[in-house]
C-alpha cells in the first residue's frame, strides 16, 4: 500500500505536537525549580564537572587532529538540510527499500501509536521480555512503561541505561545516561537490584562491567525479541545503522529472531555515501573517539543470518510541527552526539534532570519545546546564557542560540495575558525610544536609593541578583552628562 506523507506541508490546522500523558518530553516543574534542587547536591555537581571536563578534553583533542573538521561540519549540515527539504520523498524511498529487503515498515504519528505498534508486534512474536539497544526515540515515547503495562519486561542492555533502569532513575545525558552517578553509587545499585550479583562486588569499573556482562549474557541468549533505535537510515539502500561502543547493541541486533527498530523520521539520510561524513563527525563530537567501536548495519532480512523478522517503526511525534517552523527545523539536524551538553556551562551545573525531558542540555532546550508545543516547556528556552559554546561544538552546525532566542519570542507570544515582565519590557522600550525620557530615567536610577545599600533591598525578581551579587553604585554622572559638560 502506498501512503502519501505530508511532512512539513504548510499547515491549515495548528501543527500536531507530541501528545501529553505519554513519554518523557515534559518535566513536572520548571527548569529554575528543578535546577535549584540539583544545584543543592554537591556530589552531583562533582560527578558532572568531572565527567563533562573529561569528555570535553578528549573530544577537543581528536577534533584538533582532523584537518578538515570545518568542512565536515559544513557537509553534515548541508546533507541534513537537504534531507529535511525532501523528507517525505526520502521516507517513502526508505519504506520501499526496506520492504523490498524483507522488512515491514510501520508509520507512527505519535508516541501512543508507536507504543501500540511495538507492543502488538512483541505479543505477536509470543514474547514476554525484550532486550533493548540504547535508544533515545524509545525513551522519548515511554516505550518501557507501555511494555510493562502490557506485561512485557524490557531489559536495557547499554551499561549506563541498565544502571538507570535498575536504579529506577531517569537518564540525564543523551550519550552517558548515568553521567550523574559515580562508581560507588553504581555498585550500590547493582548490589540492590541486579539478580544474582556477587555480594562482594568491588566498585572498580572492570568489576562493575563484568557484573553487568554476566547478567546481560544470560538475557541475550534467552530473549527472542529486540527493540532498537537507529542513528541513520539510508534511503537509497534501505540500510539501518546503529553506532555504539559496548557491543551489547550488536548482540541485540544479531542474536534474537525478531528485531523492532523505532526511528525518528529525521534520521534518514539520502545515500550510502552520506554516512562517510556522519561516521567521522559523530564519534569525535560525542565520545571523543576517532572511530566508532561497534557500527552495526543491516538491510531488511538476510535468510539464515541474524533476525528473521524486521520491523521499522517511523516515528513523527511532533517532528512535522518542528519541520513546519522555518527557523526551528534546524533542530531536526541533530545526530544526538551530546557535544552541546558537554560544553554547556548550564548543563554542567544543573545536570540533565533539570530539563525534564529525555533531551537535556542546549539541544533539549530547543527540541523539547518544539516537539511538545512551547506552552509545555516554556522555561527551557531561557535555560541558557546564550554563551554560544553549543553552536561552536555542534557537528551539524545547529545555531542553538538563534533557536533559543526564536523560541523565547514564541514563549512570550504564547502567554494569553500581559505579565509584569511584558509590561516592564514595553515600558522600557517606550522610554528607550525617547531620549529625553531615557535621560530622565537614568537620573531617577541614580537618585533613588530605594534599592538600599548594594541593592540588597530589591523586590523579586531582582533579588535573584542580589542574593549572591552586589549591585554597582550608580555613578555621580552618566556618560551623556559628562559629554554634555565637556
Amino acid at each position, binding site marked *: 500500500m502506498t501512503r502519501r506523507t505530508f511532512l512539513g506541508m504548510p499547515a491549515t490546522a495548528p501543527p500536531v505536537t507530541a501528545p501529553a500523558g505519554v513519554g518523557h518530553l515534559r518535566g513536572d516543574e520548571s527548569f529554575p525549580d528543578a535546577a535549584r534542587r540539583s544545584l543543592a547536591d554537591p556530589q552531583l555537581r562533582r560527578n558532572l564537572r568531572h565527567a563533562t571536563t573529561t569528555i570535553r578534553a578528549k573530544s577537543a583533542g581528536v577534533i584538533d587532529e582532523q584537518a578538515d573538521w570545518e568542512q565536515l561540519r559544513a557537509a553534515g549540515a548541508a546533507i541534513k538540510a537537504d534531507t529535511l527539504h525532501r523528507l517525505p520523498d526520502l521516507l517513502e524511498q526508505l519504506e520501499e527499500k526496506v520492504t523490498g529487503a524483507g522488512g515491514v515498515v510501520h508509520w507512527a504519528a505519535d508516541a501512543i501509536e508507536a507504543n501500540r505498534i511495538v507492543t502488538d508486534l512483541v505479543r505477536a512474536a509470543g514474547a514476554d521480555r525484550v532486550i533493548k539497544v540504547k535508544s533515545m526515540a524509545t525513551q522519548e515515547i515511554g516505550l518501557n512503561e507501555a511494555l510493562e503495562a502490557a506485561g512485557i519486561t524490557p531489559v536495557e542492555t547499554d551499561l549506563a541505561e541498565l544502571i538507570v533502569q535498575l536504579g529506577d532513575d531517569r537518564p540525564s545525558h543523551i550519550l552517558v545516561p548515568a553521567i550523574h552517578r559515580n562508581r560507588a553509587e553504581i555498585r550500590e545499585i547493582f548490589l540492590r537490584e541486579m539478580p544474582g550479583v556477587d555480594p562482594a562486588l568491588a566498585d572498580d569499573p572492570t568489576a562493575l562491567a563484568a557484573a553487568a556482562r554476566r547478567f546481560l549474557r544470560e538475557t541475550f541468549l534467552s530473549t527472542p525479541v529486540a527493540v532498537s533505535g537507529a542513528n541513520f537510515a539510508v534511503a537509497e539502500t534501505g540500510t539501518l545503522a546503529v553506532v555504539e561502543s559496548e557491543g551489547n547493541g550488536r548482540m541485540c541486533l544479531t542474536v534474537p529472531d525478531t528485531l523492532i527498530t523505532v526511528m525518528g523520521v529525521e534520521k534518514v539520510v539520502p545515500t550510502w555515501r552520506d554516512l562517510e561524513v556522519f561516521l567521522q563527525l559523530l564519534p569525535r563530537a560525542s565520545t571523543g573517539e576517532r572511530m566508532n567501536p561497534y557500527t552495526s548495519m543491516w538491510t531488511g532480512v538476510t535468510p539464515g543470518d541474524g533476525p528473521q523478522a524486521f520491523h521499522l517503526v517511523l516515528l513523527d511525534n511532533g517532528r512535522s510541527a518542528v519541520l513546519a517552523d522555518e527557523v526551528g527545523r534546524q533542530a531536526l539536524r541533530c545526530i544526538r552526539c551530546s557535544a552541546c551538553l558537554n560544553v554547556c*556551562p*548550564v548543563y554542567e551545573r544543573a545536570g540533565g534532570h533539570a530539563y525534564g525531558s529525555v533531551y537535556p542540555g542546549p539541544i533539549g532546550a530547543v527540541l523539547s519545546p518544539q516537539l511538545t508545543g512551547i506552552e509545555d516547556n516554556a522555561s527551557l528556552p531561557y535555560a541558557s546564557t546564550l554563551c554560544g559554546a553549543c*553552536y561552536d561544538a555542534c557537528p551539524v552546525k545547529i545555531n542553538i542560540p538563534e533557536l533559543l532566542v526564536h523560541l*523565547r519570542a514564541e514563549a*512570550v507570544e504564547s502567554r494569553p495575558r500581559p505579565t509584569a515582565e511584558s509590561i516592564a519590557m514595553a515600558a522600557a*522600550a517606550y522610554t*528607550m525610544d525617547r531620549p529625553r525620557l531615557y535621560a530622565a530615567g537614568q537620573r531617577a536610577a541614580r537618585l533613588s536609593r530605594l534599592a538600599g545599600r548594594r541593592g540588597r533591598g530589591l523586590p523579586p525578581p531582582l533579588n535573584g541578583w542580589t542574593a549572591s*551579587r*552586589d549591585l554597582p553604585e550608580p555613578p555621580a554622572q552618566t556618560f551623556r552628562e559628562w559629554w554634555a559638560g565637556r
Partner: protein
Amino acid sequence: MRIALFVTCLADTMFPQAATATVRLLERLGHDVVFPTEQTCCGQMHVNTGYPREAVPLVRRHVRVFDPYDVIVAPSGSCVGSVRHQHAMVARRAGDVRLASRAESVAGRTYELSELLVDVLGVTDVGAYYPHRVTYHPTCHSLRMLRVGDRPRQLLRAVRGLDLVELPAAEQCCGFGGTFAVKNPETSTAMLADKMRHVLATGADVCAAGDVSCLMHIGGGLSRLRTGVRTVHLAEILASTEQSGTPSARSAVRS
C-alpha cells in the same frame, strides 16, 4: 579618523568610566570622536528575553542615528554582537526588509573596541601604562559572536607595567546572560562561583574584560565576597598613561 561612539545603555548609565576611557583613548591616538546624542539602547535585552517586536523601534532608532557614520565603535562585544547578528533579523521578522538592509550596512561599520584598534586603526601598542597584575576574561559574545580572538590580549601585552596572567577556563561563561541572571539565579551563581575561583587563583589585582555587563556580574560577586579584586574595562586600562594615573573600578567620572 572620525569615529562615532555607540556608548551602550549600560555603560552610559552605570559604567561611564568605560565610555569616557574609550573617548580619551581614541582622542589620544589622534582621532575625532563624536557622540550622537539621540542614541539610547540597541534592544538586545528585549530580543534576548523574547520581545523582538518591542525591539523594532529601538533597532530603527539605532540604524537612523548611526547610519551617517563610516566608523562606529562600542566598548562592548555583546552590544556589537547584537547589532551585527540580531538587528537585521529583528527587522526581517517584523517584515521591514528595507530596515534589515540598512541595519546590515550599519553593522558592517560597527566595531568592538579591540577590533577597531587592531583591525581598523592598525595599532596594538596604544602607549598605555598600567602597573598592575591583570587577568582577562574574554566574554562569550566577543569570543564566539565576534571572534575577536587574541586582539584584546595583544593590546594588553603591549601595555607598559602590566603583568598579564592567564585566566584558567577563561572561555567559560561567567553566568550573566542578561535576564538569565535573574530568571535562573542559582545556576547563574554556580557559574559565577567557578569564574571567581579561577580569577582568584591567578592572584591578579584586576579582572579585565571588554564588556561592562559581564564585569558588573563578576564584580558584583567579587565585591560581595570582599575579595579586593577589582573589575576594570579594557578601555580604562588602555586609556591609562603615566600622566593620567590609573583608574580604579569605582573611580569618579572626570573630564
